[in-house]
């Protein structure tokens, strides 16, 4: 069953055609990779799914529910969460506070009860803390809980951002180049984490990758974008020797 359906999605920026007639679907439980050269429109596609580009054409459906024209906050509530290509963490807040913000929309107490720090507000705080601690445990972030994000090294920050997305308990997790800028060891850790997520928690993931090899090893399904268009779509085994894919990657890191 398709969890996410993209139907003829298009997007233009004053002349630049970032996306053009993009249609494909993502199965529930899949680890679906989207690859393509620089400027192919991969991040733009994510922005369309999470509702950031209001001027998008075409339609996006999650679990049969229309996402087109829906506010980003509402799309988040429906179960889409994401990791940004260039980290978008709350720099001055601690790791724990960043993770708790992932639970923001599940809080039931509002400003008034928070102002007076009522019993309900306190209990809710503890409840969400417990959930955040599970994620901290899963991602080995125990040592960094109380540290402001600004002082952390890049590799840890990537993990914090993944953690923040996981705290939302998403149906669909959008990962925009989660391994960019990581060293070999950190990349392997990230790959293992993504596999664990799929096997243990069954989260559907869409992964944007640059490195063909990393993506081909992990993904269950691959979509190749080039200049805003889908040029190939299928399981990695079928695409490995596809000439269209290889030609889009001339000069890139092609799998051996």
């Amino acid at each position: 069953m398709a969890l996410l359906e993209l139907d003829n999605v298009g997007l233009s920026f004053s002349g630049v055609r970032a996306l053009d007639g993009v249609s494909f679907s993502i199965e529930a439980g899949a680890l679906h990779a989207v690859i393509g050269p620089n400027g192919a429109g991969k991040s733009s596609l994510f922005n369309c799914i999470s509702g950031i580009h209001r001027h998008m054409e075409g339609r996006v459906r999650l679990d049969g529910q229309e996402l087109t024209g829906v506010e980003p906050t509402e799309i988040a509530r429906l179960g889409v969460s994401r990791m940004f290509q260039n980290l978008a963490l709350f720099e001055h807040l601690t790791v724990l506070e960043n993770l708790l913000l992932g639970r923001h929309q599940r809080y039931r107490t509002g400003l008034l009860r928070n102002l007076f720090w009522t019993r309900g507000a306190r209990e809710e705080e503890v409840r969400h803390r417990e959930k955040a601690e599970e994620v901290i445990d899963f991602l080995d972030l125990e040592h960094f809980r109380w540290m402001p994000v600004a002082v952390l090294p890049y590799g840890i920050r990537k993990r914090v951002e993944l953690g923040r997305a996981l705290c939302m308990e998403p149906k669909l997790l959008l990962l925009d180049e989660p391994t960019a800028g990581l060293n070999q060891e950190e990349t392997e850790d990230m790959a293992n984490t993504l596999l664990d997520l799929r096997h243990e928690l069954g989260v559907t993931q869409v992964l944007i990758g640059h490195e063909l090899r990393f993506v081909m090893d992990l993904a269950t399904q691959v979509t190749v974008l080039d200049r805003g268009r889908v040029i190939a779509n299928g399981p990695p085994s079928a695409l490995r020797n596809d000439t269209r894919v290889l030609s889009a990657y001339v000069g890139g890191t092609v799998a051996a």
Partner: protein
Amino acid sequence: MPTRPLVIRYEDDLQLFPGLWHKAGAVLTLAVALGYPWLASERWLTVGNLGLVAIVGAAALMVLTGFAGQVSLGHAAFLALGAYTVAVLGNKWGWPFWLALPLAGAVSACVGVVIGAFALRLRGLYLAIVTLGLVFLTQHVLLAYPEVTNGLSGTSVPMYWWFRGDVGSAASVGDTWQLGPVVLGFERKLYFLFLPLAAGTVWLTKNVQRSNSGRAMMAVRDQDLAAEVLGVSTTQARLQAFGVSSFLAGIAGAMFAFQQQYITVEPPFDLNLSIQFIAMIVLGGVGSVFGAVSGALAFTFLSPLAESVGHALPLIQQLTSAQQATVLLSVVVVLVLVLEPMGLFGVWLRIRRYFQAWPFRY
């Protein structure tokens, strides 16, 4: 040196004074605050009251600027609204102060939320300019209805215990009480009224900071796009920040009016006042309640000191004492920021780190 007991439940992390040292610090602060009005001279008692007013005003601005990242030059307008609300309620209808006070906050908060809605898409410099406009607009409106506000000549601010007309002749808070050897003059009574108000404000703003509502404001401040994608409504967070901030600013304005007993529109409710509050939170350290309190106190207590040393200093002897204080305080603010960008809060963090590592120095 264990500074806090072992945390075994997540509830323990939510406490304001988790460890022995925190509790000791709280008790010490309370002792100083309660002892101060009995030891201070009349002049310093007044400074103390102004300090408590400044704490409420600075904490209010901290919510808007420090937490939500909305730089506002309009703070003076909200204080003016609070001040004139209690003046009018007292003069026209003889309301008791404890009823007028929350209403002053409410009036100011209503205007704050409207301005907040109006300024939703504005940020940085643009917001600063719109809020600056609010100061002029408020001044203009207050002066345009002299039959209500008494216009340019200013208005007295009566402070009644109960409704005027009821209970015989309405007792004014200004009357001196004599209980045996204990004398409670106007300023001393005000002090014991302002102290819980300031403490309550600190508690409320701390609760905002440590709760989901405050985190949402800070998320919008740091990364508004990411905040939206996480489900944080930037509109709601900004409006809440405006609401809480202007409510507390209205209270601060009302407290100031009661303390002054007679107020005019300008001075004090002008751009200069807004900038003073910005200086306070910058001096204290933007983003923390501690910064608001320490900045407010440092600012109010340094002013009279600066005035008394000003005439002895070269270059600035020719200026009026108020100008001397302004110059000296500006120098202090700049120096603190050059040495410690996080303000007094940063200094405090350093001291704390030193003691946490004590007796090892590294």
